[in-house]
């Protein structure tokens, strides 16, 4: 034992220097790889940059706005943009800039949290259906088809009419209705992987179903799930804005981009920016998530890009 230690005595030191070197090298490698990826894949970097900027603005809302979003100042009713009200004021004299930034908090959190729910349900349903096949697959596929075939807005109206309107409920409802496409993607992928040799190998050495699923199959899905989840955020933000526009989503006075547009629509002729600014906010954020998702897909699966080109 000690002889062995002595014999290899010099090794640990060498290993450490060597491993440090390797770490340093790979860190430089990662840095360079990230940089070259960003240059080679502008969708990823532009989309990501916009998402970061918008998120930071939303997070810093109390510190970068001059007026609280709900405070009414009738003197500034429908005011044009000025030093005091950067993006003007709405029909109640509320600061448009402040409202659009605070609304970003609401829209982004609804988009992200409902996406999380979508992904959990989608992965669960898709993985179970794809892995077990047979009647499990038949039942789950039918359920997926049922939710998919009911036009989303009608299903949402029904659930909102039943369960009422609050932000947590909205997240729940959007999450519960928007998973079918993710489930389909996951199911197809699991069906493809299920017959792979490494799965058979794991089963031969005694791997149980949950083990194979958690250890071998689900990790392979991470790229495809992340890419579709990003696009899902964009879709869910659009759904939320539509519902809020209809008066079935987030209720005033809490600002969201959707209900700001409803408020502003009546004053469009005098103050187009009351529609234009929240409209642009939705457009920019949704576009950013979409192109980031596309970029991610190209990056994770170069074949998809080759196929599309």
């Amino acid at each position: 034992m000690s002889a062995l230690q002595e014999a290899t005595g010099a090794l640990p030191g060498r290993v450490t220097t060597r491993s440090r070197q390797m770490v340093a090298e790979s860190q430089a490698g990662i840095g360079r790889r990230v940089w070259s990826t960003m240059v080679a894949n502008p969708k990823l970097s532009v989309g990501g940059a916009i998402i970061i900027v918008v998120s930071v603005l939303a997070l810093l809302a109390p510190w970068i706005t001059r007026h609280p979003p709900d405070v009414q100042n009738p003197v500034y009713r429908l005011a044009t943009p000025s030093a005091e009200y950067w993006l003007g004021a709405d029909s109640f004299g509320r600061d448009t800039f402040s409202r659009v930034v605070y609304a970003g908090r609401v829209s982004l959190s609804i988009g992200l949290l409902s996406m999380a729910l979508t992904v959990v349900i989608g992965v669960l349903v898709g993985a179970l259906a794809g892995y077990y096949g047979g009647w499990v697959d038949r039942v789950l596929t039918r359920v997926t088809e049922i939710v998919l075939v009911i036009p989303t807005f009608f299903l949402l109206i029904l659930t909102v009419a039943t369960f009422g309107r609050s932000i947590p409920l909205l997240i729940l409802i959007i999450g519960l209705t928007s998973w079918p496409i993710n489930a389909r993607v996951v199911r197809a992928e699991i069906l493809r992987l299920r017959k792979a040799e490494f799965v058979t190998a794991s089963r031969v050495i005694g791997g149980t179903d949950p083990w194979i699923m958690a250890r071998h199959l689900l990790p392979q899905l991470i790229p495809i799930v992340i890419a579709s989840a990003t696009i899902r955020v964009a879709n869910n933000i659009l759904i939320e804005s539509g519902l809020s526009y209809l008066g079935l989503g987030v209720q005033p006075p809490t600002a969201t981009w959707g209900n700001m547009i409803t408020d502003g629509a009546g004053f469009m002729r005098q103050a187009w920016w009351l529609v234009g600014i929240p409209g642009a906010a939705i457009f920019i954020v949704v576009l950013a998530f979409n192109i980031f998702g596309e970029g991610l897909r190209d990056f994770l699966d170069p074949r998809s890009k080759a196929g599309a080109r």
Partner: protein
Amino acid sequence: MKYWLGKLLETVPLLIGVSLLTFAIFRLAPGDPVALVVDPTMVSEEDQQKVREDLGLDAPLPVQYVTMMSGMVTGDLRSFKSKQPTMEVVMDALPVTLLVGGAGLLIGLVVALPLGVLAARRPNGWVDRMVSVSMTTSLAVPPFVLGLVMILFFSERWRMLPASGIAPIGTIGFAGMDSLPYLVMPVLVVAFGPATIFARYLRDALTSVLRDDFVRTARAKGLNEPVVLTRHALRNALLPVVSLLSSLIPITLGGSVVIEMLFGLPGLGRVTTQAALSRDYPVVMTAVLFVATVAVLSNLIIDVVYGWIDPRVRV
């Protein structure tokens, strides 16, 4: 024949599933379901009991389900506001929704066809780039924002088109040619998204078909390019577009809600939203079931068309 029959039979469990889901959502509501329909603080206990009986809410669940479903068909299930049978309310609203949605999808396809072909003929050319970019961009434009911008210019500024309604004041309901100007903007808003998506799909399908051997053979035979394109390539490239249609139909029907509210069209979406806002639950439920049935049936038609274009799927 057996293929079509099988397809038809497949839709039955789907429709039953849809109706069970809508019923389940209704019954999952916390508290007394009567509270969904009437405000318990405003309505006497007797009236609440009457509502309960009308809806058959004191019966066992399976009986309730059957009562409700048959009530929709027989007209026993009535709107709480207008007392009209819910099926009538829904049927009155349906034509506008189908007209606007159908015309929108059709125009989307018509616009997309030449764009997709041009893009595929010159991959990476300017048309191709434009098709790619416009799909990503159009997916980020909420239809109600597009509609409001159109109203601002075409109605408010230039006074070219009416902003709201389906017919001139004084006429009730759809008024033939007089209604046409009222439909221009809604149809264009519906067509906007599908046009870019169709174009992109067609382009992708066509580029890969154009690389196929049979296209080379056709060209080698000396057929001229238009014939190769229409007879050989396009016929094959249209398949993914047709199957795309089956996922766009529920989306378009769902989108009708926002568009009808925006343009004040008396369609299914507006009727449902207003019913939901005024707690007219039977109408909401009937409308949801009905619109899902329309989606299922149109998908059935698409399956039939698909089998007709590509006989291979029938086997």
